[in-house]
């Protein structure tokens, strides 16, 4: 049985994905399915809450890489929040903070979306 799960929460136009467990080459397809589902529902503003994500390998990072441009081209984004330091370290190794908004809290991530919409 996989020790990874994705929970969905809808907050107005933003979808929050609660990641739990360990994200590796075996479980990455579950994250991919979750992001695809958001796209299918025409929700392009995604906040990933990593508070309960205990592990990530490059296969997990790859899912974010594969979808970020499509979401941004639709006016959306993936903002990543509340990562544990050991998980953030893996994002940081590849320079992900240059490509993604990675913030301390879910509230901050949602505020960034709100600020973007106000500016538009």
């Amino acid at each position, binding site marked *: 049985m996989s*020790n990874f799960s994705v929970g969905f929460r809808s907050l107005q136009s933003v979808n929050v994905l609660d990641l739990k467990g*360990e994200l*590796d*080459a*075996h479980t*990455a397809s579950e994250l991919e399915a979750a992001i695809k589902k958001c796209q299918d529902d025409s929700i392009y503003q995604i906040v990933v809450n990593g508070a309960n994500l205990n*592990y990530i*390998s*490059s*296969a997990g*990072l*790859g*899912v974010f*890489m*594969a*979808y*970020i*441009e*499509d979401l941004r081209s639709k006016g959306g984004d993936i903002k990543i929040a509340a990562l544990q330091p*050991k998980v953030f*370290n*893996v994002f940081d*190794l*590849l*320079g*992900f903070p*240059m*490509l993604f908004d990675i913030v301390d809290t879910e509230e901050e991530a949602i505020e960034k979306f709100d600020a973007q919409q106000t500016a538009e």
Partner: protein
Amino acid sequence: MASSTYKLTIPSSTRYLEDVRRFIETHTVEAGFNTQSVEQFKVAVDEACTNVIKHAYSGEDSHELNIKVIVDSDRFTVCIRDKGVAFRPKEYNEPDIFELAKRRQAGGFGVHIMRRLMDHVEYSSQGKVNEVRLTKYLNSHVKNGR
């Protein structure tokens, strides 16, 4: 101190990566590595095994990976052996995440991660057997100044 060796064999399927990480965690903790180094070993060995499963064996789950941990007085080495298609490190280009994102590419940075996290990464092939050796030296990574 004589070296100690521990072995784990898994089928070539990503469903066993979790078992590999538990195995690595057990032995790196036992060797006295700090929490950060334990995590680094788990990620680096996971990346090496994932590459073997996906590339050397093209995702076929009917093969095996042999993982061996060697604990010496000054270093901790993990050897991963397979009998699939050999990896050619000279043909590997360092990833550019902006370029990969543009191409919607989901992979290609496992080797980069291994090299960043380990003190030494070495690939070799003898006959049909390929091996990657991941090494970290104990001096700068142990807790309690062991």
